[in-house]
């Protein structure tokens, strides 16, 4: 028995029609579309254009179907840019360099675009980058950069160093007469030469009985330089300033760089001490606690 509240009884008389997904296959579409008033529902079986309703103020005689004139596409940007881009793409598709075409109108050619890994912050030489950051006080990077360029100027103007045979520099170093005119090389050579090759880690309580176990370990170039710069900066900060003004720090630092190259600096002693400790603690690498320690990780 049917329920009294079955809605289908009243709903059966309603026509359910779907909206056409592609409405104008057989209609002269755009023209017809143009005349359809807004808000008019388009049904799938609508064949002809319905007459316009007279619900507005306009009398029906004034609405005459206009002949269709296609509106030009509104350009969002100058079209030649697109053309250029398309031409470049075509060139790239043909296996040629797409940038050649773009560089045609430029006076000095296309500048080399930065690669994906390039960062603005890394635009300097790695040694310069590192030393600038380590000189920096209170976050004043541009002041540190000023100091670094003054240090390089100090190296440019100081007489060529006299290299001591007791403290050999890195192999392959240029003769000292060439150093002042290449201050970056001068600085790099000093720092790299005095940099230690190991770090001695002191593992707390590993030797048993609460005493620490010293273990040497190799370090990478950046860490080596860091240690060397720390030593040099230690000495520079302790050195008494004999001048004043903006050049005095650069002069102190530059003097220390020169004395490193000449083998007079105390940084060499610290390097030697560290290497001695490293050599002595080499035996600890086979320490059972350490072997266990390594196995644990």
């Amino acid at each position, binding site marked *: 028995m049917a329920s009294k509240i079955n809605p289908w009884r009243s709903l059966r008389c309603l026509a359910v029609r779907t909206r056409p997904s592609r409405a104008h296959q057989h209609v002269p579409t755009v023209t017809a579309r143009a005349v359809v008033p807004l808000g008019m529902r388009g049904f799938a079986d609508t064949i002809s254009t319905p007459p316009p309703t007279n619900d507005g103020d306009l009398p029906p005689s004034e609405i005459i179907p206009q002949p269709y004139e296609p509106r030009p596409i509104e350009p969002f940007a100058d079209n030649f840019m697109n053309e250029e881009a398309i031409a470049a793409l075509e060139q790239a598709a043909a296996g040629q360099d797409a940038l050649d075409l773009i560089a045609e109108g430029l006076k*000095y*050619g296309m500048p080399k675009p930065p690669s994906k890994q390039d960062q603005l912050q890394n635009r*300097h030489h790695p040694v310069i980058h590192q030393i600038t950051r380590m000189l920096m006080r209170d976050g004043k990077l541009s002041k540190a*950069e000023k100091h670094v360029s003054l240090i390089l100027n100090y190296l*440019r*103007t100081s007489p060529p160093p006299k290299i001591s045979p007791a403290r050999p520099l890195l192999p392959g170093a240029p003769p000292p007469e060439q150093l002042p*005119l290449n201050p970056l090389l001068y600085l790099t050579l000093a720092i790299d030469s005095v940099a230690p090759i190991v770090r001695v880690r002191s593992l707390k309580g590993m030797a048993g009985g609460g005493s620490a176990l010293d273990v040497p370990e190799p370090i990478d170039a950046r860490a080596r330089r860091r240690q060397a710069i720390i030593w040099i900066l230690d000495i520079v900060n302790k050195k*008494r300033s*004999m001048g004043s003004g903006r050049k005095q720090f650069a*002069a102190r630092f530059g003097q220390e760089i020169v004395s490193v190259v000449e083998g007079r600096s105390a940084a060499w002693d610290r390097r030697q001490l560290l290497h001695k400790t490293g050599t002595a603690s080499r035996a600890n690498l086979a320490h059972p606690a350490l072997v266990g320690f390594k196995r644990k990780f």
Partner: protein
Amino acid sequence: MASTNCWRCLARPSQRLLLAPVSVAAASAPTSATFSTSAQQLSSKASSDGSKHIRSGKRLVLGRKKRNPDRTKPPQPGERKAFRKRIQLSNDNALKVPGLDVLSSEGVVNPESVGKIFGLPVEVVDQLRACEAFKSSQNWSLFRSPHTLVRKETVDLAKQMTDAIEKKETLRLVLTGNRGSGKSILGLQALATGFLNKWVVINIPEGQELTTASTEYAPTPNSEMFSQPVYTVKLMQAIHQTNHQVLSQHKVQLDHMQLPISVTRNMTLAGLLNATKEPDFAWPVFQAFWKELLLPGRPPILFSLDGLAHIMRISEYRSPAFELIHSHDLSLVRMFTDALGGKTAFPNGAAILGVTAKGNAPMIPSMEKAIAQAAAAQKGEEPPSRDPFFRKYDERVFDTLRGVKVLDVRGVSKTEARALMEYWAASGILRSRIDERSVSEKWTMSGNGVVAEMERVVLHDLRET
């Protein structure tokens, strides 16, 4: 349950008294003191050793920050300032640049020498050094010997000066321009022109030295002005040193009866300058020298001052009534401003040069307005009017700068920039290829050729090359 025995020696508490000698004997051994920090032991240690605690390792020690005193010799008085002010004009590491001409009095006015690098003659370098035209902030120390770029403004200025002096007129000119555009260097080139042409060159290297109350001053008798005796002595010595050759050819013509020193007619002007080193007599003698210079038949004068803004304001000196003194009431400054303002007549021709500074200069609205008005008048435009709501315009500044010529120094052109960069590269300071592209790039990077910015971009560049 607590043990009745001692943990350490397994003795009963009642027996410990008997063992006391043993424990005292053991106290000196390190093994027995592992947990004992008794005051008794500490005091006995302190009395025996007295200097340090036995354990220096893992213990909080306060007051460790004591620095051992610096054993090195402290700098002598004045040494630190000498370091700051030191002028180094040569660098033996830099390469010698062959094929460059030496600056001459004809070359500096020749339009063809625009965009070329010239060496400064040795004697001119000495003179420029004596009158402190070189500044420690300039990069002379990087190069083998002092060379300078002759730019369009240089030739223009030198031509204006020589033309005016040939006609026995007075050129009153103010050099303006952006920061780092080369105003002081242009002033130096003007001084070099003066030395090359055998004019009497008087240079006040820093206007602020006169007005920041850093040198002594004294009221001039019978006037409201103040003289600066020590500075005047220094200036007289500098003038004597730099212009000795010119001044020794002219003899004193006037009677200087009022002077505290005896001046005879057979004394040369150089001798007059050198006659006294006594600060008390300096100002009257300098005044007498100035009077002698203004007589007809004397050599032309080039009077230049760097840092114009500093002398266009109220100085930091105080009058006896403890009121601030206007800079123009300082007699040496007054001498310059009278010359720049056209109050002094120069029968032999003169060039009065005021060089403004941008790096270290106070804001002087009167001076800026007066220079803007002078520049507009020079171009034949309507001069900009004063701000009607600004109360503090200084009429004396306007009087001083009325009718001066203005030379606005801007960036160098690309050809001049190329000459400069090629010189840097030839000296071995700049290690890169110089071609049209790199010159154009650096020129653009430096704000269309502002020279100090070019130095920053090119010489102080830290980039990986």
